[in-house]
């Protein structure tokens, strides 16, 4: 994975006595102390992180955590007090006015919480705004804008005005406007927070769907943990202008860095986030090409199991055999395992959320087999490990 954006020691201080405030920060003074002494507010302090190409990177925090300040420094709507931002290794923070304008026009666009559509412009004119200011001719820019509106599922509203549209529709326009100039990076500032829950979920799905074929680098701000876990490839949690933890949704659920994060993730429906690979255990297997019934039986006895999983030499999943069949085979003095192989075993992929498996897991007596794209057996899911994961305990690989 290549790094698209690198943020180094980024700091933003609001107020008149920024210099003094900076000194105090370096001396390790608290934010309250700095506010009292210099009347300056520390928005973001010493933020360091990378955003990978084509990922959805969610910056999450409550209001006042500095996330909006941080995202506004990425396109320099706010000038950073200190630190550096690199895009593909090039320093955004060093851009002069003209370079900054070109960068905003071509590389990075933004979607706003309250849509920020221009009320005096029609939907198509709003969408084409980014192209219009670049001097693209009317026919071309309206053509492109129209395509983007279709892409976000808004048909037939081109000549309407923003106040004639619902919130969900308006934010589709906001998204289309952000996509129209074909940026490499999309900044989304609480883009779905102003929508009702139903619309919000729909837009999240829409975004994931769009992302699966557009492959942009998306930096998404949210105060909603469920939203963050749902759409984020990685999540960065902020508090009081500082970064608390960065990690994949699963990392954060499984290894919350401190009490703050732990409190945050209380009450999250883990079954939506945890995937099969996270709860599976590694089973002992027998190789159908070289092992016989006796090996199988011994393995079952050792593990106190009544069945064993079967693979071939390349670890491709073949099926499962039951103890009683193996015993019968030994009594009949047959070495063949193929004839007693059960293939009616439920299977799943490693990135399936366990939510969608729960129902089947409760119904079938045999554990699920987790297979990769080439049908190789990665692990099995047993009920006790699912229960353990849901309750927040780490799965032990004791299989």
């Amino acid at each position, binding site marked *: 994975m290549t790094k698209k954006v690198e943020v180094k020691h980024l700091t933003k201080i609001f107020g008149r006595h920024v210099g003094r405030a900076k000194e105090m920060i370096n001396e390790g003074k608290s934010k309250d102390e700095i506010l009292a002494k210099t009347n300056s507010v520390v928005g973001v302090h010493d933020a360091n992180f990378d955003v990978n190409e084509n990922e959805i990177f969610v910056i999450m925090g409550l209001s006042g955590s500095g996330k909006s300040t941080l995202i506004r420094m990425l396109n320099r709507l706010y000038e950073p007090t200190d630190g550096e931002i690199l895009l593909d290794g090039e320093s955004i923070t060093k851009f002069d006015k003209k370079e900054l304008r070109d960068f905003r026009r071509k590389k990075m666009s933004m979607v706003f919480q309250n849509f*920020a559509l*221009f009320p005096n412009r029609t939907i198509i004119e709003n969408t084409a705004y980014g192209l219009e200011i670049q001097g693209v001719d009317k026919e071309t820019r309206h053509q492109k804008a129209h395509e983007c509106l279709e892409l976000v599922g808004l048909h037939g509203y081109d000549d309407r005005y923003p106040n004639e549209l619902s919130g969900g529709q308006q934010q589709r326009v906001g998204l289309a406007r952000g996509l129209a100039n074909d940026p490499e990076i999309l900044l989304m500032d609480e883009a779905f927070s102003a929508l009702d829950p139903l619309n919000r979920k729909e837009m999240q799905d829409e975004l994931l769907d769009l992302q699966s074929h557009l492959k942009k680098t998306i930096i998404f701000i949210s105060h909603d943990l469920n939203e963050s876990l749902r759409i984020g490839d990685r999540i960065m949690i902020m508090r009081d202008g500082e970064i608390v933890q960065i990690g994949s949704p699963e990392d954060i659920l499984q290894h919350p860095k401190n009490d703050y994060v732990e409190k945050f993730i209380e009450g999250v429906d883990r079954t939506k986030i945890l995937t099969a690979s996270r709860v599976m255990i590694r089973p002992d297997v027998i190789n159908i090409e070289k092992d016989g019934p006796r090996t199988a039986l011994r393995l079952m006895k050792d593990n106190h199991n009544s069945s064993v999983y079967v693979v071939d030499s390349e670890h491709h999943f073949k099926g499962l055999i039951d103890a009683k069949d193996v015993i019968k085979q030994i009594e009949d003095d047959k070495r063949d395992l193929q004839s007693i192989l059960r293939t009616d075993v439920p299977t799943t992929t490693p990135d399936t959320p366990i939510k969608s498996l729960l129902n089947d897991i409760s119904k079938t007596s045999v554990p699920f087999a987790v297979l990769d794209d080439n049908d190789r057996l990665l692990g099995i899911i047993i009920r006790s490990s699912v229960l353990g994961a849901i309750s927040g305990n780490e799965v032990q690989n004791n299989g």
Partner: protein
Amino acid sequence: MANLFSLTMQPIPFADWINKFVNWLTQFVGFFNGITDFIGAIVNSFQWVFDLLPVWLFIVLVLGITYWALHDSKHWGLMLFELIGLVLIYNQGYWRDMTQTLTLVLTSSLIIVVIGIPLGIWMAKSHTVKVIVKPILDFMQTMPAFVYLIPAVALFGIGMVPGVIASVIFSLPPVVRMTNLGIEQVPTDLIEAADSFGSTGWQKLIKVELPIAKNTLMSGVNQGMMLALSMVVIASMIGAVGLGSEVYFAVGRNNAGSGFTAGFAIVILAIILDRVTQAFNKNKKH
């Protein structure tokens, strides 16, 4: 205590200073003559057009402009009022006075728009400018309008031009203020949106800020125009001809009848100007 006592005995010579300042200004006679000629040319152009137009054509044009400005919401009542009102002014023999007053108002309005709107924008963009201009506007608005007549005569002589100057000073503040307010009231996220797509300062102003501030800005222009009209009687004291001077003469002759008739003509003109500019403002509201 002794100091305070001597202060009451010896007045600070404010009046002297101001007179000296005005006298000092009169040495730039070329500059003020230039302004006089320029404004005089605008006044003469308006008057030339109004004198050229036959009364019926003038009325038709006013009705036409109203019809066009009202666009989607037709107020036949207003157009009927205009027709009756203008015919009445003609009937009373105030036609030319009315066009002269209209010239004074339109010239003043033109100047306050040209000066006021850019100044209002500049105030919104620069804190320093705002800090300097604001108290000046307060001063301009609270100083009794009569006072402006004195330096206006000293610097621009008598006639329409000093009348226009006095009207401009009196009616400029609302245009500047409302423009400033309109630009400052553009929501932050729209400004951020314009910036985040890489707009230049001019693009942001013309494509986003001015269109959104338009309504507030236009009500400033409307207010300014009404204030300019309220100055016509005062301006007539320094030789600005028109309905104002009719009222002024009527006061001198103690003739309530002609005073009120000319006064009604001003009211009719005021209503027409007010409603038509407001119609332009409401027009195409989204």
